[in-house]
């Protein structure tokens, strides 16, 4: 009996230790497995704070190694090609249109499970988080928000005798005329109708009282490229072009327009309103005190809208769960209250913080020094009339861009027919796939 009891005790003890061993092993897989995260960076733009944060991250999480790769081309194409080749960075950032492209191309993974387990996530601004909700899933950690508006060249406005920024389309047109001086190769308005043409157009369409798509009750989208407001906006574009108050180069891309603006060749341009835009322009040779900001003027509908978007960080899709876990840990660490605070202090130490709408509710720009009042006002005004990009843009945007570029380039092209043809083409593929995805996500 004693022998039997001892035997049972030994078996029980062995079983417990075996189970305990299994348990320990399982925990060890999640917490101590050596993981390497690949990060794409550019030394020229990397700050000391970022270097310090990476060092402190590796100290805090010794099982996660950061493999920093100096990457000259961090564009969408390079990133997606790297995923296909299997050597992509573990995390990736981008603005709204880029992030949406990554989401629709399955390049980044949904993060809802992580959000549920991360209490700090509640400190991120809700509308910025929801901006990246696709088919019921979240994909991105917001790192900043931008609103769309206008940048103007203050000395050129003064020289043209313009004392107030335009508040309506008519005033915009009148100011563009005043700013156009062919002898100086100076034009009024740098208008993108080529590269991301439907991005800028959408605001004019909203201000004309319409939209490029609508969201149905079941979450699917219906395209409205043939909305009469599109024609109104297109006619406004064409009027400006016929009056020769926009750039004469029909192939000018966003960067060309920015260069012209920075070099005093154009009076105003459509742009995201962010401190970083001013930094970019200063880098191109413009004086920061010459840059002015104003919110979108009202259109024929009597209303104004501003497209709101944001910069985000995302986790690259991978088949290795440990890498995904580590990537999430890294992103939350780098965007924590303390890390964001260190970054803002660093920016403030180099000069005025500018202005901005932060992504964390527990931080305020004004705590870090003076803000640019004009930029902050333009951002706040724009934010008050904020409008998300037209629904399903991430899926159909390139089709709309091509159609806009076509009628923008050629005045003889029928706008309605071109937009209708683009709509039919998108309905046959891009929208079909988008709607199928929405319905599949519901099941």
């Amino acid at each position, binding site marked *: 009996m004693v022998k039997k009891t001892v035997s049972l005790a030994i078996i029980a003890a062995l079983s417990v230790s075996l189970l305990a061993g299994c348990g320990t092993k399982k925990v060890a897989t999640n917490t101590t497995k050596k993981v390497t995260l690949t990060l794409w960076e550019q030394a020229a733009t990397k700050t000391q704070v970022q270097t310090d944060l990476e060092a402190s991250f590796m100290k805090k999480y010794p099982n996660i190694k950061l493999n920093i790769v100096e990457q000259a081309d961090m564009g*969408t*194409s390079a990133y*997606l090609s790297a*995923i*296909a080749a299997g050597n992509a960075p573990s995390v990736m950032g981008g603005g709204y249109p880029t992030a949406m*492209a990554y989401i629709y*191309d*399955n*390049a980044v993974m949904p993060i809802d499970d992580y959000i549920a387990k991360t209490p700090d996530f509640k400190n991120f601004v809700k509308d910025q988080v929801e901006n990246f909700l696709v088919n019921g899933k979240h994909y991105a950690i917001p790192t900043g928000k931008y609103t769309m508006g206008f940048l103007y060249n203050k000395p050129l406005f003064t020289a043209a005798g313009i004392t107030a920024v335009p508040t309506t389309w008519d005033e915009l047109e009148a100011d563009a005329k005043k700013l156009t001086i*062919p002898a100086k*190769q100076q*034009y009024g308005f740098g208008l993108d109708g*080529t590269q991301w043409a439907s991005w800028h157009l959408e605001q004019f369409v909203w201000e004309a009282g319409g939209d490029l798509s609508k969201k149905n009750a079941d979450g699917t989208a219906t395209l409205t490229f043939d909305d009469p407001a599109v024609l109104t906006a297109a006619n406004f574009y064409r009027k400006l072009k016929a009056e020769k108050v926009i750039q*004469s*180069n*029909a*192939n000018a*891309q966003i960067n060309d327009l920015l260069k012209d603006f920075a070099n005093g060749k154009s009076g105003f341009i459509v742009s995201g309103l962010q401190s970083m835009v001013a930094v970019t322009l200063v880098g191109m040779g413009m004086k920061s005190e010459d840059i002015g900001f104003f919110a979108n003027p009202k259109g024929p509908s009597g209303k104004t809208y501003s497209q709101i978007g944001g910069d985000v960080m995302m986790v690259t*899709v991978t088949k290795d769960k440990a890498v995904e876990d580590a990537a999430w840990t890294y992103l939350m660490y780098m965007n924590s209250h303390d890390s964001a605070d260190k970054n803002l202090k660093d920016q403030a130490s180099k000069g005025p913080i500018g202005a901005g709408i932060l992504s964390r509710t527990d931080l305020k720009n004004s705590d870090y020094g003076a803000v640019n009042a004009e930029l902050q006002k333009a951002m706040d005004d724009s934010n008050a009339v904020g409008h998300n990009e037209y629904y399903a843009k991430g899926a159909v945007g*390139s089709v709309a861009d*091509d159609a806009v*570029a*076509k*009628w*923008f*380039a*050629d005045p003889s*092209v029928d706008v309605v027919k071109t937009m209708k*043809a683009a709509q039919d*083409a998108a309905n*046959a*593929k891009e929208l079909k796939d988008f709607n199928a995805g929405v319905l599949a996500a519901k099941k």
Partner: protein
Amino acid sequence: MHASNIENSIKIKKKKPLKIYNVKRALIPWLFLIPGLFFTILLRYYTIFQGLKLAFYKYNLADPPGDFIGFKNFEYLFKNKAYWTAWYNSFVFFGLIIGLNFFIPLIEALLLAEIVKLRSFFSTLYILPAVIPLTVNVLLWRWIYDPSYGIANRIITIFGGKPMLWLSDVHMVKFCIILPGVVGGGLGVLLYLAAILGVSEDIKEAAQIDGCAGFKRLFYITLPNIKFMIFIQLLLTTMGAFQLLDLPFQYTNGGPGDAAQTVSVLIYHLFTRNFDYGQASAASIPLLLVICIITFIQLRLNKEEKV
């Protein structure tokens, strides 16, 4: 018996080194060829077949190659107006390149061959544009064409003309893209010139004695003797014209609108802007077939002429 054994052993001894030598001789070229063949198969044919495969898939980055969708990518392409516009543009570029970049260098070379003095100077003058990197050339010409501050409009206005939009004009853009290739002359002129100068002096003298001069000499002596060069140039120009990507891409990115979007630019945009690898692969297959068919016809015609 003994003698025959010795004889046999000598025969064997004699044959053995010969056999090894023959094997070596047969193997060595292969050993040199294998690395080249390996990389050609890997980097050329493997990618072509991968492209063929992708054309039938809805590519998924997360789980490549994604879902097999049969001919759906082709179906969508063929229904898309932009695809046919790209083909139209490719054929217009082909016509312009053949009309301007193929014949004009030949005429320039024929004229150069007629002069003795300053031939070297003009030859150098023609080759210089080919030495300048394409991107530099494009940047220079973009500046020349700029509607606001370009030199082209300055010259036109000096002579009382109206400024033009050049690359921003949907009707002029293709011509503007091809024109710089004609102005410079380039490598084509030198290749033709080398072929013309390579025509045997005996033939030329015999023709002269027979009274064959001027245009007669051109059509009956010079051109038939440089036919091989004309044919090679025609083949290369045709293939290059249908694959045209760098020029329209660097000048206008296929714009304005889609006025300069060739099939190759469209494929590039499908790959790098739409990230639709399946559709981009599907679009490249008809292009490959068209080039193959045209090249086959040209080869066939050349063969028939020889017969």
